[in-house]
């Protein structure tokens, strides 16, 4: 076997897993054989509607793939994907209200939809979107969703994140706010949620980087 052939095979073998990891390729062709045939026409139509409205389609493809992997029955699978479309529409409406006059990037729409799915309310999302309209909103929204999931008051959580942002924390560092608040809440002796938030506020912006 020649050196060139060995080298070519090695490069192909190395690049193949990268393609698989990145999940490249889009659209409903990725769904063939992965979702029940009975669900495919309806899912096709939902994804086509999203594309026609310039909404991101990847979250819907992912939801369909997820349902197929979990062997979700066709009717429930279609409902799950349809629910995703509704959240994307709601997300874009919130973005349009928060940052008027701009066509929001697909990534921002998907991030807001994910925040809604995690239970954040529209007004809290909108408030955090106005914080830094040009920055990807995902980390701030996930940080807020983390705080709400740990039973912190949504408005107080948003206040803390706004303050953290104003003191220089950006991007994934905002997630450390939620980690620190949860840590304060778990301290022996017991703190109330408002005490925990007050302690974190006092530490800003010097928070320890937490785990993802």
């Amino acid at each position: 076997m020649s050196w060139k052939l060995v080298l070519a095979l090695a490069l192909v073998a190395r690049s193949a897993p990268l393609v698989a990891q990145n999940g490249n390729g889009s659209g409903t062709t990725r769904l063939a054989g992965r979702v029940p045939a009975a669900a495919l026409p309806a899912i096709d139509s939902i994804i086509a509607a999203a594309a026609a409205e310039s909404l991101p389609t990847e979250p819907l493809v992912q939801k369909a793939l997820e349902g197929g992997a979990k062997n979700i029955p066709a009717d429930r699978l279609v409902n799950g994907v349809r629910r995703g479309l509704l959240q994307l529409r709601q997300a874009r409406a919130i973005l349009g209200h928060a940052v008027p006059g701009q066509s929001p990037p697909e990534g921002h729409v998907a991030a807001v939809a994910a925040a809604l799915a995690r239970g954040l309310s529209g007004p809290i999302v909108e408030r955090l979107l106005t914080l830094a309209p040009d920055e990807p909103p995902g980390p701030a929204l996930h940080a807020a969703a983390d705080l709400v999931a740990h039973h912190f008051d949504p408005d107080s959580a948003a206040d803390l994140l706004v303050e953290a942002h104003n003191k220089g924390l950006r991007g994934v560092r905002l997630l450390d706010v939620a980690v620190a608040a949860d840590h304060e809440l778990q301290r022996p002796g017991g703190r109330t949620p408002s005490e925990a938030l007050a302690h974190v506020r006092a530490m800003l912006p010097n928070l320890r980087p937490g785990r993802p």
Partner: protein
Amino acid sequence: MSPLDPRLQEALDGERDPGDLPADLRDAYARLNAVTHVLKTTPPVSVASRVMAEIRENPAPVRRGPARRLIHWLGRPRAVTVRLRPVWTLALAAGLATVLLLPWSNGGPTPGVAQGIASFVGHFPGARSVEVVGSFNDWSRGVLHLNDDDGDGIWHAKAVLPAGPHEYMFVVDGERWVSDPLAGRYVDDGFGAGQQNSVLIVRPVSAQP
């Protein structure tokens, strides 16, 4: 060319008495011996005389500048003989394959700028297999398996993933879908049965503590 009879070779090398050879070989010995004698007595053509003859036949080339000589030297085909020991060739091939084929180095995955390292850990005593299935691998089975090498029931895996949020679940023994109890973030999967996906936010390598 037919091989020389070993007995004749030995006689020519002085290791055997020519008188002991059979008649036909004795005759061949005599002829070969005569040829050897002739070759020994004919004066060899000296290297110097051959070089001088070559120079006379080929006039001196036009002198070129260093750049043109370099170009001429580079452009002229040359026979290259490469002598390789199989053991070193195989070692080199093995080394090249190791560098190119293995995605893990220094004991762990190496992420790019827009990637990060994700660690998955789960306590599943008695499980035969545990894998992670999620949005980072198109919810495909059989891609990312956790290991429990010491059999203590704690399964773990590391992977390089694109930075950002990912939803995932563990699949235990190929059939049981389980949320990651250590994820800390969950979201309803939206299929109406109340099942929750775990949410992982991968920090880009530049932002990892």
